[in-house]
């Protein structure tokens, strides 16, 4: 079981390649912050030029620094919560042509059986809903 190594790999009937990841940890969502509003400009080209560095810093802050800080702060909480629970997440990831992630949640009692059923379903081109598992559909 691990976040970075697939527990199964499956090829679908039309050649689609799926990796199934099993983990106890739900990674915190990557949420980009809102950069400051600079789009209106000042009306003065020289003023707009002076604002350019602030716009860049604001964009980097909103798109990278803030979400990264949030992710790093929440990660230990997610990790501890996952360790204390008997719930298991199974994510099916297809990277081509667009990244798609589908989620099932089950318990540690049935994880191997559920994993087998999901793999068999994907090999047949279906998203199955095994007993003892909750299919949540595509992750945002």
């Amino acid at each position: 079981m691990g976040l970075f190594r697939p527990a199964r790999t499956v090829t679908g009937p039309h050649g689609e390649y799926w990796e199934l990841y099993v983990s106890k940890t739900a990674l915190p969502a990557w949420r980009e912050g809102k950069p400051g509003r600079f789009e209106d400009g000042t009306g003065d080209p020289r003023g707009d030029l002076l604002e350019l560095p602030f716009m860049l810093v604001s964009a980097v802050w909103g798109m990278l620094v803030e979400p990264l800080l949030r992710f790093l702060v929440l990660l230990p909480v997610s990790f501890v919560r996952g360790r204390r629970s008997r719930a298991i997440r199974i994510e099916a990831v297809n990277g081509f042509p667009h990244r798609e992630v589908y989620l099932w949640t089950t318990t540690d009692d049935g994880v191997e059986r559920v994993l087998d059923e999901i793999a068999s379903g994907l090999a047949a081109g279906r998203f199955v809903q095994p007993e003892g598992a909750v299919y949540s559909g595509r992750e945002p």
Partner: protein
Amino acid sequence: MSAYELVDELPSGPARAAAWAAYALTTYADKLAAAAGRSDVVAEAYARASACLDAAAAGGGPLPAGLPHWHTPVRSREQLRGMRDALDTLRTYLAYELHDEHAPQLARIDAQLARADELWIDRPPDEIRGAIGSALAIGLDEAYALGRRLMTTA
């Protein structure tokens, strides 16, 4: 007379069906209140139970189509415990009424209990709590409907 007593006193027919509805609603409200405290669903269940008792006293009448439902998909662990206790109680009553612990009429209720059992773990995440709550709500509706049929015609 309380709903718990009335459903045992009346002969089968519309009045007993109303008494069953009152019993099921009161049981649901009592178990939820004991496990998770008061809520809108508890208040609604008690209100519907009171109306059903009036209908039973009048010899029958229009009854609620089902138990009150939650307006959000994910239940707390305490609410799930209350729902589970209520479903176990209603199932026990119905099995006694059918004189068979494993009567085929109970299969649909048992299927939902089994689904809840499979997912019942400590510290369940939202996805699992949502699925357990959904299974228990379906099971409670099945029990309520089966009881109404049985008490009317048994």
